């Protein structure tokens, strides 16, 4: 579904991505883990076309996405920080994005819109919303067009426990439907619940890319956080 080969990107001297080659299939849910500045966000941004890689290839559904834009209709993106124009109403944000990419779509996925009861605050201006409510809007937008790939950047940060549970259930449901899901988070328990594989980056390089089950059996640990801690302690292989 998604394939990167020797993907590299530097910002000045900093190598944000260094020869990253990974392959991801539909039905996989991949955790992107790594310290701050390890290249997680840069990888996501390359996929979304926000950052243009220096070299390497990136293909989605077998087609190169570099320099193109139409492929993005297969991707739903939930950013880490959702900031919207101050005076735009919640309903207008939905209308706007629908006008941009909803042409020709018969079915919209409004599960989250219903679960979060967006209709109740649709008339409010974006600037009056709390951070968590804005995150709900971002989440609804990411799932709205039933995309085949979901990119979630720190999805549960700022959401209240109930909203966070709703989102996690939705992610799991989409995974079951055979979507490819990429999640970054610092909350390892969330990642353990949601994802099947771990892509661990340090200084832009892939340290390992394995399924969570493999990780656990390799380290003999029951929990993802302990397995990771163990790997980080005993030299990364």
């Amino acid at each position, binding site marked *: 579904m998604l394939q990167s080969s020797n993907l590299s990107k530097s*910002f000045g001297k900093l190598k944000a991505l260094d020869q990253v080659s990974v392959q991801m299939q539909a039905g996989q849910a991949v955790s992107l883990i790594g310290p701050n500045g390890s290249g997680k966000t840069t990888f996501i*941004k390359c996929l*979304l*076309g*926000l*950052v*243009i890689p220096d070299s390497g290839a990136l293909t989605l559904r077998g087609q190169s996405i570099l320099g193109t*834009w*139409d*492929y*993005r*209709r297969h*991707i739903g*993106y939930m*950013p880490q*920080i*959702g*900031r*919207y*124009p*101050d*005076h*735009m109403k919640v309903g*207008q944000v939905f*209308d*706007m*994005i629908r*006008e*941009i*990419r909803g042409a020709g779509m018969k079915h919209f996925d409004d599960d989250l819109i219903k679960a979060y009861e967006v209709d109740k605050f649709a008339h409010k201006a974006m600037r009056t919303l709390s951070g968590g409510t804005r995150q709900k809007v*971002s989440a609804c*937008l990411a799932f709205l067009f039933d995309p085949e790939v979901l990119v979630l950047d720190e999805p549960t940060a700022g959401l209240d426990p109930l909203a966070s549970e709703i989102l996690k259930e939705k992610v799991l449901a989409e995974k079951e439907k055979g979507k490819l899901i990429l999640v970054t988070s610092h909350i390892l328990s969330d990642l353990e619940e949601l994802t099947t594989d771990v892509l661990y980056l340090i200084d832009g390089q892939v340290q390992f890319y394995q399924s969570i089950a493999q990780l656990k059996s390799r380290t003999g640990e029951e929990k993802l956080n302990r397995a990771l801690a163990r790997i980080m302690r005993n030299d990364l292989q």
Partner: protein
Amino acid sequence: MFRIVKYVLYDILQNRMVIGYTLFLLAVSLGLFNLSGEATKGMVSLLNIILIVTPLVSIIFSTIHFYNATEFIELLAAQPIRRSILIWSEFLGLAGALSLAVMIGIGIPVALFAPNATGITLMLMAIALSVSFVAIALLASVLTRDKARGIGVALMLWFYFALLYDALVLFLMFSFADYPLEKVMLAFIALNPIDLARVVVLLQMDISALMGYTGALYREFLGTGWGITFATLVLTAWILIPILLAVRVFRKKDL
């Protein structure tokens, strides 16, 4: 593209700064026309204020707006849409909103007190300057990553065009006073949209005789149909060149 412009425009028109700016222009224009009794006198005072204020507000507001919209622009850039459409929409939204502010704030008083060619020229020049400085602001914004630095660059650019440039030209004129500089001066004027707008309006006012020999030369050149075409073309270039460059940079920019 206009699908997006609609929403950008709607958002900006509700902004307090834009509403305040419109009211300020309206108050100043009405005040000056009323105080000076004679329309031409009011027009000269108004011209001087407009040449300072419209570029300043346009460049600062556009820069702040662009940086505040960084995250939203990022979200839109991740949608199936061309980057160039995004930046054009931002430009048209900003230019549209600030032009509307000028049309209301200056257009209404002009229609009431000086509904003649000079008044219309004044308003058109204010609109052209606004749009041009929106384009310059966007170019400066896509070239600088940091918000504080971006606003700093915007202020410097305004300072240069509104104040510094004239001082430099004066300095040159005095340094080379022994040479015939009139033709060179025409070129200098074209290199600053604010100066060009000023000369075009002054020539409409029939007071260019007060501007000495250079004024006569301007009259001879810019007063004719060809000169008006020239001024229009140069002002259009002052809009198109910065915005086309901004689009070019933005298309390849890492967000």
